[in-house]
């Protein structure tokens, strides 16, 4: 039995989420933005796993959902990177600020 309270896990998840969010909003490099999003997903995963243990009805559902999330995140990372490469071929930059042609 773990003696660490639930709020500690939630707190850790919150901190990681905030770091990821800040990175996603302020970093220039598209790769880093993608990786920050992965960090945010990770924070969510911590929550899911934590609630699968600390809950009124504990069970494996949280862990299984985490697995699904990881799978989706992997797919997202692969597709995101592919888009990035395709973009880079058209305009040799990975700066998110210059990817604003959809505005026009």
């Amino acid at each position: 039995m773990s003696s660490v309270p639930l709020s500690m896990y939630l707190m850790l998840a919150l901190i990681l989420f905030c770091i990821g969010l800040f990175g996603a909003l302020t970093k220039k490099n598209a790769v880093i933005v993608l990786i920050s999003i992965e960090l945010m997903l990770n924070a969510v995963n911590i929550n899911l796993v934590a609630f699968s243990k600390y809950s009124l009805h504990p069970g494996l559902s949280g862990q299984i959902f985490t697995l699904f999330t990881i799978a989706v995140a992997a797919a997202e990372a692969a597709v995101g990177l592919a888009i990035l490469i395709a973009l880079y071929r058209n305009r040799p930059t990975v700066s998110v600020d210059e990817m604003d042609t959809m505005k026009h």
Partner: protein
Amino acid sequence: MLQNAWLIPLFPLLSFIVLTAFRRHTGRLAAVIGLAATGASLLMALMVFAEQWQGNSFKAEITWLEIGDKIITMGYEVNPLNALMLVIVTLVSFLVHLYSKGYMEGDSRISVFYAYLGLFTFAMLGLVLSPNLLQVYIFWELVGLGSFLLIGYYYFKPEAKAAAKKAFIMTRIGDVGLFIGIILLFWQTGSFEYDEIFKAVANQEISQTMITLTALLVFVGAIGKSGQLPLHTWLPDAMEGPTPVSALIHAATMVAAGVYLVASAFPLFEASQTALTTVAAVGGATAIFAASIGLMQKDIKRVLAYSTVSQLGYMMLALGSAGYTAGIFHLTTHAFFKALLFLAAGSVIHAVHTQNIEEMGGLWKKLRLTGPLFLIGALAISGFPLLSGFFSKDEILAAVYADGRYGLFVLALIAAFMTSFYMFRLFFMVFSGQPRSKQDGVHESGWTMTLPMIVLGVLAVVAGYVNTPWFGTFLNDYLAQGPVELAHEHHGPLWIPIAATTVSLLGILLAYLMYAKKSLSRDWLSRSFPSVSDIIYNKWFVDEAYEATFIKGTKAASCGGTLIDRYIVEGAAEGTVSAVQLLAKSGNKVQDGKVQTYGTVVILGLAVIFAVVALTGGYFS
């Protein structure tokens, strides 16, 4: 025939519409269309007049508006006064149309000119036929518009443009007075109808003060239109328009509208002694004032313009002295001989291409028709015995004398002297002696120009016989048929016509000695009293006084207004604009197409919502 009188104004309107709609295609046909329209009007007006002569009056009205229990009607009416006016207006208008055919020959905008003439004639006839003050006011403004358009016909000349604006604005001052007067009358009597108003006045339903006030306000309108003191300055400037226009509008018809208005609202004026005195005083003052200016002018049309102002003052003086018949009589004869003088002046200008009388002279032999006709006009206006002006002027003097205002009577006599003097100064300077400048190719005008002058010349001679002490007072009897007892016969003592004749002959003699025989030096006045002649030559500095007071004052006020507008109103507007722009710019900045900016905004919004929910405890709790 009388019930079809409403058709009379419609012919010129039709001509206006046709000429405006097809102005690119009419060309030389324009004159024919205008002539046909006014000719038809003239024929109908003559028929109406003939029927009216037998003592029939007619009035037709339809309901126009119903406001609560007040009913406003529109319609037309034929009574002795306006039947006479119909004939005068249509006749002069027809002759001017004919004259313009020759005078405006070769003008590229001739169809526009005829269209404007049609519009003006329509408005004037509508004004004459109106049975109520509201309709009068509508046509009154239309007449002003027609005058504005015609004065500014040579709109490419800055003077003409300025004169048109001046005429419009000066008459507008009078129109405001008239409008207030009409509204007050409606407030007091609940009707715009002449008949209703006169009935209310006769039954003393309106207080004496209100009668005086409304009468004076209506008279303000007349002052503006008829160029009375102190709103007379537009009329001489209006001479920038083509000469036929001056003859039609600024001699015979429109300026007479003020007199006509006072005449048709005469029962109202009669009920107030103060109003009558004001009318008489303004008329008398205008008569002598304008005559004095006329002594010194060098522009042939301006002399005639000041003469018109002076004669209109005479008519006002007559009306103010309860000389209803005298006023209308002089209006009629004046319409003929002043139109004749203007047309003759136009003929002279047409021949020598200048309006400065200093450059004319010796034209008597060259203009074999215009010269004698001008002489007839000059004699008529001077009151030479047995010509029309003699009888009407005599009538006025008798009326003024009978009314007992001896000061005004003396003024009128002096004005008569001045009139004959300046008219013959004009005549001798233009027609006698030797040419004072090079004049090539001076020749008599064509028949389209001389024929109207001959007709008017005949009328200027014989028009006086409709009302004379010797052959019968037809006009007085005729006007006495009107619905209200207005016309009073004034039989002054025998010495009045003798005095008037003497005075006018003295004026002619003086002019002859100074300008024809040159036995008197013509500039003794300017030499002996330089300041006086300076004042008179500059038209008593009225324009300059207006410039210094009203125009400067208005400019100062508008400067203040500009400041308020620029810094307060505009500041507020600009502030709103820049606030909105700031908002838009910040909104624009947020939408820069960069994903991260959008994300930041989303997070900001989320944070705000979270903060609100956390601080207030949520909406549902």
